[in-house]
């Protein structure tokens, strides 16, 4: 899980920097190329290791063996990946709506905060593995448990971030508006929400990657379709190259969604980082 959270982060950050300051000397080009070089390097090392030590495919398949397996099973893989992408994005979308709403409620009212926060923490502490069987009992094997698991696992970071962004409005700023007779609704709309946007978008990047964890988890435990199901079936047949193909496709989808979330972040909250870019340029 930890490796899933961090792995997609690598290519996106330098890409964003490069976007903001085009063609800025070799250092920036290097930053841009670095994640690709690391990925290629890892695959090369992997390939060489497997060949030199003649590791059998069912223990650790080489990248080329994985690629062959991918090509052989491509229709099935893409079909299952499409299912997983669908359940993940669906659950994630619900998480955005609920997360924003609940985050605003918790962040703008100490009453709601005190009432709900402990429950939220407790709920988040429950391993979702334990919840999936219940969901399957309730909704049967299929799409619904995967969507719900993706939602459950990804909405917590959104709630916490939005609530934090709203709750940490500077007291002076609050006073300026309150002194004008602003109601708390005005303060949330004019200051709280815009201020929470960077937090919100940052949380989306975490949320989308853990949403994949959720849906695949549900598919692994019980489903008839999805990349998780595919990997379970493949590993029961000791088809390790196919399992790895499934893993890599998942990682690829994670990175792709992360990049999209990142693109939205820079588009929507440029004000939060542009000051930093200015300083960097001034410093050069």
């Amino acid at each position, binding site marked *: 899980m930890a490796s899933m959270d961090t792995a997609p982060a690598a290519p996106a950050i330098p890409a964003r920097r490069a976007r903001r300051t085009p063609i800025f000397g070799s250092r920036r080009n290097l930053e841009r190329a670095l994640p690709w070089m690391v990925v290629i390097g890892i695959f090369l090392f992997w390939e060489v290791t497997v060949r030199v030590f003649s590791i059998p495919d069912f223990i650790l398949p080489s990248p080329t063996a994985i690629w062959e397996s991918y090509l052989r099973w491509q229709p099935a893989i893409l079909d299952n990946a499409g299912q997983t992408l669908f359940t993940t994005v669906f659950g994630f979308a619900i998480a955005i709506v609920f997360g924003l709403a609940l985050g605003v409620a918790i962040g703008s009212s100490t009453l709601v905060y005190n009432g709900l926060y402990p429950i939220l923490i407790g709920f988040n502490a429950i391993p979702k593995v334990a919840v999936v069987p219940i969901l399957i009992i309730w909704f049967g094997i299929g799409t619904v448990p995967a969507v719900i698991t993706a939602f459950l696992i990804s909405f917590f970071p959104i709630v916490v971030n939005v609530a934090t962004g709203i709750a940490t409005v*500077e007291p*002076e700023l609050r*006073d300026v508006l*309150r*002194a004008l007779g602003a109601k708390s609704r*005005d303060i949330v709309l004019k200051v709280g929400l*815009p201020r929470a946007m960077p937090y919100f978008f940052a949380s989306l990047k975490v949320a989308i990657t853990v949403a994949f964890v959720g849906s695949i988890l549900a598919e692994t435990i019980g489903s008839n379709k999805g990349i998780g199901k595919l990997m379970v079936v493949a590993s029961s047949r000791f088809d390790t190259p196919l399992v790895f193909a499934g893993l890599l496709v998942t990682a690829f989808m994670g990175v792709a969604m992360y990049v999209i979330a990142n693109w939205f972040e820079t588009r929507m*909250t440029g004000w*939060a980082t542009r000051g930093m870019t200015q300083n960097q340029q001034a410093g050069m």
Partner: protein
Amino acid sequence: MAAFVELDRIALRYGGEESGTLALLDTTLNVKEGEFVAVVGPSGCGKSTLMKVVAGLWPQSAGTAIVAGREVSGPLSIVGMAFQAPTQLPWRNVIDNVMLPLEIVQPHRSQLRAKRAMYVQKAQDLLSLVGLKGFDTKFPWQLSGGMQQRAQICRALIHEPKLLMLDEPFGALDMFTREELWNVMQEVVMDRKPTVILVTHDLREAVYLADRVVVMSARPGRMIHERIVPFPRKRTLEDTYKPEFAEIVQDLRNHISMAREQAA
């Protein structure tokens, strides 16, 4: 003539009855309409607290506060405020920041859409008055500290408040910028003629800008001394080197030292 701001034996305790901090006790202050009063005092003596009471942001524990003939029972939109901390919204450009109060205070709030051009013109006039002409589409983080404070003054004035409350607005600025802004402030006051309460720890600033300076004691704060500043406007920075000016500053300084010693 009745005072515009009338504070009568105000006490204010933050927190619990016994354990809380007593910030103000027996604080009495009257400010006439159109008068510029500066409040000086040791750090932590309750100056900001006093401002909160006048602005209706924090209810006093005892005493009465009357502003514009009515007892204060909550925030009043006839007040404009500016603080030491820059409180511009970083996602809005300068003119949208300046116009923020218009989105809240009635009747502007409901007219803003229909009369936008008129309000934009008003904001532009204010920006020119404080020397920020042409900066309207810049973002706060593109401005220097002094410029941000100028924008903040504009925002405090845009809804034409009767009472302007400034809590150490120039406190974070360097000496030269600060003196520049004194003159900006003087221009604004001579142009708009609001009633002003300025909290500051800079005695020269207080004497330069105010018609009257009051000194607060250490916490719990109350008024222990006051001086009328007789110099006519428009004042210049040369005035601050005159002996009469220095004498007033010295007198205020002595009273503050005494207040601090009593506290220690």
